[in-house]
């Protein structure tokens, strides 16, 4: 069943056009990786899905419902959550408060504070600390946990490995199957192609605001990916 569908999605970053008609279809339960160089439009695409950038009414459909022009705070309530690039924790809030505010929309589902602490036990130990006092990897866990607290049907992860040590990246990616096991659809934006190939059912490659490649990791050769990634 199709969960997410975009049709001819265009988006602007100020005066600069960042996306030129993105068509994408994602089935419920799939894990999708979006790869592409800096400036390819990956983050802009995620921001469009969440409603932080607003589009034509019909450009984005979620569970059959047009949400292209919905406001971000309404989109969360429908079941799309984002782990933003750079984590974007609230510095005035403790670890626990950061997690609790993730549940602000009040969606019911499998995730609550106890389940997040079971997924990332270190967060329980640091629950009273200011969120920004944690290490980078722990902050990323808070950011993922915060997004899960809204019990999303679609979880968007923007560059969750950025700036983290390889062992931490492995820990974080190892936790993702526990998320998808609940039936949650996952979309990760990833610069590291190997990581993307390992985690995804399907890959989309973006280049200069267009999709240049789409397919299952097994069916894609390095050469085709390089071609799609750099355009040479």
């Amino acid at each position, binding site marked *: 069943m199709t969960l997410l569908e975009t049709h001819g999605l265009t988006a602007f970053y100020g005066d600069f056009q960042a996306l030129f008609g993105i068509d994408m279809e994602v089935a419920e339960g799939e894990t999708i990786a979006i790869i592409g160089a800096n400036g390819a439009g990956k983050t802009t695409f995620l921001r469009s899905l*969440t*409603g*932080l950038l607003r589009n034509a009414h019909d450009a984005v459909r979620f569970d059959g419902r047009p949400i292209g022009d919905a*406001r*971000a*705070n309404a989109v*969360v*309530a429908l079941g799309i*959550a*984002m782990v*933003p690039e750079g984590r*974007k924790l*609230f*510095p*005035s*809030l403790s670890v626990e*408060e950061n997690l*609790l*505010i*993730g549940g*602000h*929309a*009040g969606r019911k589902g499998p995730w609550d504070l106890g389940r997040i602490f079971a997924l990332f036990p270190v967060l329980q130990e640091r629950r009273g600390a*200011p969120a*920004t006092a944690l290490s980078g990897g722990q902050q990323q866990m808070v950011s993922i946990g*915060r997004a899960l607290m*809204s019990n999303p049907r679609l979880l968007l992860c923007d560059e969750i490995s950025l700036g983290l040590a390889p062992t931490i990246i492995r820990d974080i990616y190892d936790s993702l199957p526990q998320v998808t096991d609940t039936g949650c659809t996952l979309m990760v934006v990833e610069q590291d192609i190997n990581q993307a190939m390992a985690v995804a059912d399907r890959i989309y490659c973006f280049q200069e605001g267009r999709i240049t490649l789409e397919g299952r990791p097994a069916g894609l050769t390095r050469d085709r990916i390089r071609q799609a990634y750099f355009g040479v």
Partner: protein
Amino acid sequence: MDEWLNSIIQGVLLGGLYALFATGMSLIFGVMRLVNIAHGDLIVLAAYLALICVDATGMAPLTSLLFVVPVMAVIGYVLQRGVLNLTLGDDILPPLLVTFGISIILQNLLLELFSADSRKLQSGWLDTASIQLGDTIAIGLVPLIIFGVAILVIGGLQLLFYRSKLGRAFRATSDDQDTARLMGIDNRHVFALAMAISLAVVAVAGVFLGMRTNFDPSIGPPRLLYAFEAVIIGGLGSLWGTFIGGIVIGVAQSIGAKIDPGWQILAGHIAFLVILVIRPRGLFPRAVD
């Protein structure tokens, strides 16, 4: 010696009123970085609303709070949702200009409706009731009530900010609007609620102002100035800091008046400048900013 002690005590109590002037301003600055130039005139508006209640029904000024507080809160919500939200953005100038405009409109509207005559909210026996401490010091009941309410209001807001779901949403929105929206927080609604709470506090401040001193439509801007100074002295974003800031100005004015009645207002401003030189970020700046 007792005379000086008396001045300080009266100054502290006056500071409670100034803290109430400043709290609403501190709150909306903390949540949305908005400096409300009309703040002082809204205080005066609240005093006139109380006057209408008192004149129409003969109720006690304290009772009029039951009417003035909710009305001001609704005005705050509508004002924010309908006007001020549209001015918020990366540029800090539009909200300043718009609230400046509202300030002028309010002053002239009040002048048109109520004339320039000086008015006061009469509380009967309460106006003259006092508690005698020793031979030379007497504490007026009205200033004491105002001071106590200031503590209650600030303590209550502190609880709201740090112990409630709404407070969490306030702090998150203040940190990062876009990410707060990703959590499902409607920033327009949160800002409007913050302004509603701010004007509810303004309502309390306005009624107490009218009970304590004479007021007329032109006295808003000086109250804005005291509020501003109290907020800056306390440190931006700190509610208890704002309370202390109000007391600093109250005590400075009281001591200034003791030295020479003409020095009252000036002494408050001097205290503000001195603290600004010694502690440019205020006495209790927020750790993260």
